């Protein structure tokens, strides 16, 4: 169970309208590496953790991430709150307005809805910015993953340099 606390984790009070910033910032809200994705991944992963410590840590970090979600939402909301429809259109947020008016919505910077799913490695792309591929805190497992990524980087690099 969760409780809401009626404070932000850190105070936010943006007076300036900045639609371009809002458009980019929204990816930190609902984009592939955004706060919502992080929160949900932590909370997904806690169930199958091998130790009480890791279950506790993922529960607490996942919960804290939800406070980050709220801070980013507050920033985006305040940045576009006083914008006119024309200004939104000019900033490339016309589509957002048509779909959601000025409401928040979990999207990336180009308006794609948040893909709430586990990351897995596609054929040519991978992501090392979040260690969500690590299924358990096991030294050998982590080491193997690191080697795999290293080999993949090398082979991608080779393919890339052959092309160019």
């Amino acid at each position, binding site marked *: 169970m969760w*409780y*809401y*606390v*009626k*404070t*932000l*984790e*850190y*105070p*936010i*009070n*943006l*007076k300036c309208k900045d639609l371009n910033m809002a458009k980019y910032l929204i990816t930190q809200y609902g984009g592939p590496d955004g706060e919502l994705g992080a929160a949900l991944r932590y909370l997904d992963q806690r169930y199958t953790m091998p130790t009480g*410590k890791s279950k*506790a*840590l993922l529960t*607490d*970090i996942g919960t*804290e991430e939800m*406070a980050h979600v*709220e801070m980013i*939402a*507050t920033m985006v*909301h*305040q940045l576009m*709150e006083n914008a006119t429809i024309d200004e939104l259109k000019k900033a490339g947020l016309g589509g957002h307005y048509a779909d959601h008016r000025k409401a928040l919505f979990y999207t990336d910077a180009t308006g794609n809805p948040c893909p709430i799913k586990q990351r897995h490695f596609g054929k040519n792309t991978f992501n090392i910015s979040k260690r969500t591929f690590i299924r358990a805190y096991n030294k050998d497992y982590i080491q193997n993953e690191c080697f795999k990524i290293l080999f993949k980087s090398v082979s991608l690099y080779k393919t890339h340099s052959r092309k160019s």
Partner: protein
Amino acid sequence: MCPCKDGLKNIMMYQFCAVDLNLYLDNFPDDKNASEDYSKVSCKLTSLIHDYEKTHGPLTNFGSSFIENPKAWTDEPWPWENY
């Protein structure tokens, strides 16, 4: 929400501190300094929240605040609003 007055900013400072100490203690449960700090911070935080809630209504609900004031819950400013 105006954290600059009414002691809310003070509450948020202690809250922030408590969150980080808690996460640290998840990792290092045997750290004596951190656990002493955590006791102090959470004690101070609880008393600050209690005082604040008496005049401004609850900061949390569903039975986890001692103060019940449904009108203040809806009428007091929300955290994402400009001040």
